[in-house]
């Protein structure tokens, strides 16, 4: 049975510990001297008016339902995995044009030493085998989740990074 998955963050639970980012590098054998890590962890403090806001975030590909990077790629390198609906890629014909980066409103696509695009693929092979993505498995607080888009809400919408960014995403072309 094919499913529609995405990876989402419960921002109320994230403590910016970085376990997800480390697990991802390990899982993907990433040489971070050459390639930017797929998962980005932030601990951001901001003065806003009178108060201070704190953001604890872990951001990698959001596996958008209507993914702008897919529409933008001139070589059709980026696609939806039919089994999981995760945003996967085959960069055999990638020309390194950076159009996917210009299309992605999260700033996700990165590039390897060969100039070809790389990013989080949702650990779709693990998911095919009933496993959780490496970052999700490593998250000690349960903030990072593989969510079934057709199942019940697992994260309260006000805390869900996916929900919070839907309006923003709908404006991207």
């Amino acid at each position, binding site marked *: 049975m094919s499913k529609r998955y995405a990876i989402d963050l419960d921002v109320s639970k994230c403590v910016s510990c970085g376990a997800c980012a480390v697990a991802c590098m390990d899982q993907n054998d990433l040489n971070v001297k050459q390639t930017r890590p797929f998962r*980005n962890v*932030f601990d*951001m403090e*901001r003065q806003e008016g009178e108060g201070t*806001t704190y*953001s604890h*975030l872990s*951001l990698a590909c959001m596996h958008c339902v209507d993914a*702008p990077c897919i*529409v*933008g*790629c*001139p*070589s*059709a390198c980026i696609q939806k995995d039919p089994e999981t609906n995760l945003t996967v890629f085959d960069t055999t*014909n990638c*020309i*390194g*044009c*950076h*159009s996917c*980066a*210009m*299309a*992605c*409103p*999260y*700033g*996700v696509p990165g590039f390897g030493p060969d100039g070809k695009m790389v990013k989080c693929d949702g650990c779709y092979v693990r998911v095919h085998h009933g496993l959780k993505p490496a970052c999700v498995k490593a998250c000690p607080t349960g903030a990072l989740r593989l969510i079934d888009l057709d199942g019940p809400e697992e994260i309260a919408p006000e805390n869900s*990074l996916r929900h*919070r*960014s839907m*309006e*923003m995403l709908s*404006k*991207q*072309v």
Partner: protein
Amino acid sequence: MRYGIVGFGTAGYHAAQAIREQDKAGEVHVYGDTGLAPYNPMLTTYYIFGKLPRSGLFPFGPLEEVADRLGLTLHHERVQKVRAQDLAVETERGVQRYDKILIATGATAFAPPVKGLSPQDAHLMRTVDDAQRLKDRLDRGDVRSAVVVGASMAGIKVVEVLEKYGVRVCLADLAPHIFPLAAYPEVSAAIEKRVAKRGIDLRFGATIDHMELWNGQKTAVMTDGSVVPADLVSLCIGTRAATQVVQGEVDIDRGILVNERMETSAPGVYAAGDCAQGVNLESGEKQIIGLWANANRQGAAAGANMAGGEARFEGNILHNITHFMDMDFIGFGDNRIQGELLEQGALDGDGLYVRAVISGGRVAGANILDSYRISGILKNYMLRLFAGEGGSLPDYQRAMLLQAGLRAEFIDRMEVMTRG
């Protein structure tokens, strides 16, 4: 239902795909005059360069595979006319009637004739044939000099190809600067410096006037009287929407006028891609935005609506990313609009440079050099402002911009200036 799709580029492909998602049983008839799978015109220069095999020009696979996958009936024929009143498609072989018709004929490269230029030395760059012709010519190894007319994104890619083949290249344009429709003059000047450093002969305010033979060397005589050796001439001057098939049948300006549903003025007739003129979200006016992603979005919306769906594509802004000669140039919005300037980085330095022009509480335009990483978020910000949203970046976008090297002061200033 019977659907007719006229022109099988990426707009036609995306329409066919969207129709199939909603209507598994309907007949989808596709007319194409190339006999080839949908190809991407922007990949032509990459093929000649050697970055892609010929098959790479066809992102969606070979024609038979595409037809199989989407259940299409192919017509390898040039459409002569589409009659809006009775929804009929005319070809040399006859007339076919449909319930819905999509015009997805794209655009053609055009160039006025140049006196003295022999047809075999004149090259355009759009079709698979154009690419193959130039590649074959360059592979012969007898091209030592060339003039490229048109300092556009397409022109610079052709220059890059010629440079790779060791050809002495002159790039000329009547405009005063490179990328005149997208770059601010200061940014153009910086790009020109970099291009000139590589040994490309740049000439602005001039174009080719005619060709002459000088001591046996084919030579371009420019409008300013100067002369340049030119074994071949590449004309990247402009494109024209291919609207002839519906001339007099639907409302046409520069392109076929469409609404957010991709409907033309005639019921049952839709248009999408480079032949269509949709909304520019910045000006609110209708304008052809001849870009790959735009053709895909328009095609998908048209297809969904033809099959009875409710899809809207509100429009787009001018946006361009050109990766060439180890640099990235990104241009957003209307570069003619003046306003307050926001800038970070040095034009003659390495790394991220960004220049944004703020006018009326919106980011009217932006140029970025060498930072693809901030481009998607900045474009999104512009789009949200044009849609009437207030100026503030969500924390995850701010965090990614900071990580990519955009300074907090730049972001803060941009937010304040666009808060409305």
